[in-house]
């Protein structure tokens, strides 16, 4: 039955996270970005509201919500600061790998200790983004960039399985192109002992599908913000005697940006609903990610363009959106791998 409305529970979640993001994150986005971290009191408040355990099963003290709730929350947080969103959600997409392969046992063993200790973070890295070698149950190699300043648990996802590493990692801080509030580091593993590993290509694909949707929904928020901020600016900034938005060249651009955001949103929701129905959403999630990344190439630079010289300056948030949307598009395997999975329907 076709229905585009949200139920009351989801509406309440969206309202709550929107208020939290606007009141607690928005005023300090440039501070968090320059400090490469989010204030401790904001982290505590986020955890108090159980937003750091949104999808964790209720039996483990989580909220037990599904993918639709996740993408709705991520859109709202991404619209304010996707870097802060990553810093606050300390399990991040690593949750999906632990859940897919190890279920309650793995979540209890690996995820809960992260949540129970202040500041700890789990990171998910894809084998395709790294140079890892495994020998005698130990991993060595590097990942050029992770959007984190800590890696208390490293979950490595390949096409066919996953490994978990707790010790033996070192981080080298980076400036980072975007998502700086999450921190930015290169990750090195030196004979890091593997404490859990699984083999199952289907589960690997399912975990990656959710991780991509996680990234796509943050990206959706960034794109929405860039599109809406530049739209409002264009309605107030005047040139040649009228708001610049009333020059048809810009009006049409703004309309097309609005449409591009909606196309991403619909595909993200489509994939989330499919996953929540228990169906295989691999192709749909990959398609949503590809759509989001393609839209970011259009919206990111044009958000800056509409503001002209002001857009290029860090006094306005559109340059940040342009950088962050690019960084998010490179995450979780990037667009080319996603396109491969999005075309699986041809087989």
């Amino acid at each position, binding site marked *: 039955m076709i229905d*585009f409305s949200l139920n009351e529970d989801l509406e309440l979640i969206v309202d709550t996270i929107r208020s939290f993001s606007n009141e607690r994150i928005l005023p300090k986005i440039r501070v968090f970005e320059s400090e490469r971290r989010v204030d401790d009191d904001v982290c505590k408040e986020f955890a108090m509201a159980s937003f750091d355990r949104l999808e964790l099963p209720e039996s483990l003290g989580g909220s037990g919500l599904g993918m639709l709730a996740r993408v709705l929350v991520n859109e709202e947080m991404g619209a304010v600061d996707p870097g802060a969103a990553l810093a606050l959600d300390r399990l991040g997409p690593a949750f999906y790998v632990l859940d897919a392969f190890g279920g309650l046992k793995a979540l209890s063993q690996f995820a809960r200790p992260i949540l129970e200790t202040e500041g700890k973070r789990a990171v998910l890295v894809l084998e395709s983004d790294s140079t890892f070698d495994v020998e005698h149950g130990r991993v060595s190699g590097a990942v050029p960039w992770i959007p984190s300043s800590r890696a208390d648990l490293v979950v490595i996802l390949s096409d066919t399985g996953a490994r978990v590493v707790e010790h033996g990692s070192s981080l080298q801080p980076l400036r980072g192109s975007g998502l700086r509030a999450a921190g930015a580091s290169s990750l090195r593993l030196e004979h890091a002992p593997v404490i859990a590993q699984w083999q199952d290509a289907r589960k690997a694909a399912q975990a990656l599908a959710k991780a991509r949707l996680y990234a796509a929904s943050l990206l959706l928020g960034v794109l929405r913000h860039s599109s809406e901020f530049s739209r409002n600016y*264009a309605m107030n900034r005047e040139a040649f005697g009228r708001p610049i938005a009333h020059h048809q060249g810009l009006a049409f651009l703004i309309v097309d940006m609005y449409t591009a955001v909606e*196309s991403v949103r619909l595909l993200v929701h*489509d994939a989330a609903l499919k996953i929540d129905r228990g169906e295989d959403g691999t192709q749909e999630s990959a398609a949503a990610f590809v759509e989001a990344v393609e839209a970011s190439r259009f919206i990111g630079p044009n958000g800056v363009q509409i503001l002209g010289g002001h857009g290029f300056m860090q006094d306005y948030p559109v340059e940040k959106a342009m950088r962050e949307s690019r960084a998010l598009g490179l995450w979780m395997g990037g667009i080319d791998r996603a396109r491969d999975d999005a*075309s699986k329907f041809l087989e």
Partner: protein
Amino acid sequence: MDFEISKELRKEIDETREWGERQVRPAGLEADRNGAPLPVDHLYFRRYLEHGGGRTRWHGAGGKSSSGSSDGVVKSVILGEETSYWDRGMTIANPGVGLPEGIVLASSTEEQKQRFLGPFLEPDRPRWASFALTEPSGGSDTANFKTRARRDGKHWVLSGAKCFIGNASRADWILVQANADPDKGRAGQRAFFVEQGTPGLGGFKIEKKMGLKAYESTSFTLEECRIPENNLLGEGDRASEKPEQSDKNVKGYKSTMGTLNASRPGVAASAIGIARAALDESISFARANDLMKQIRVRDRLELFQRKLRAAWLMVLKSAWLADEGKPNIVEASMGKVYAAEIAQDIATLAMELLGVVGARGDHLIEKLYRDVKALNIVEGTGQIQRVIMGRQLVGLPR
């Protein structure tokens, strides 16, 4: 939130598919090959009637009257997409009241329903009606139409010219948009039933189109065309009143425009139907010619599938909003422009996939490439849709 189609509706889609494959596609291809609309006495139209088509949604005098499809916009959009998959031109060529039905149901008097919709209750033969809005001087700027209606005693006298009008020469009657008070601009617009054979109605010319050849697109003229006063849509009972004295006058125009707003999801859905056909044909061609391993081919097909899904959800959302009675101006225009442009892109790239085979002019994709262009023009071009969205989103001045 739920994007799934119900089982009951799936069954109806299956039935539409079966009819489409067996009857609609062959008829559309025949018209395309002949380069002309199917003649009025074509066997297809008789079969369509026997299949249950060609009838009005009006339930007759004393029966339940509804201003829209009783099944809702979502359902009509979904079934329309399936029919357009088999041939968009045939969906317009089909007998029935067609485009003016919604306006007539919403705005006409009971006497007018009986007179003009009555013959479509159980039609003795394929019958058509027609809706004439567009003029040679333009289509979207309705306030600037040149066709005039002049009051003369108990008659209205219409003068002007219309073009690109579906099924006009074969229609029992044409609902003609004309301005009864040009000083008032759009507020002076009225709709009139002009019956076939009325003196002054003539000059019918079947236009030759690039695609969608199955339906008849017609231009015609109105030269001092005299019609009874009770042929003014919705004014039959109040014909003695002057236009400016009646509240219904403005309603008549608004109902026309409202119907166009409501029909945009349907037009967008038909673009998607054509594009889905292009996607399926592309996949078949790629498989048959061992192209599926080529990454450029796969990338194109992935793009088709993804954009098509986004467009489809956009259109469904605009239809769902209409069913919910919620404003959908932005969504209807957005779905229309996005679907039509994506559909054109898909057909264009599908031609590239065919390579020189596409240049032969005998592949279905080549037909779809010609057919689909119209969807970004009819009922408001892509540019007009952006203007409509711009008015809503940034207050773009009129």
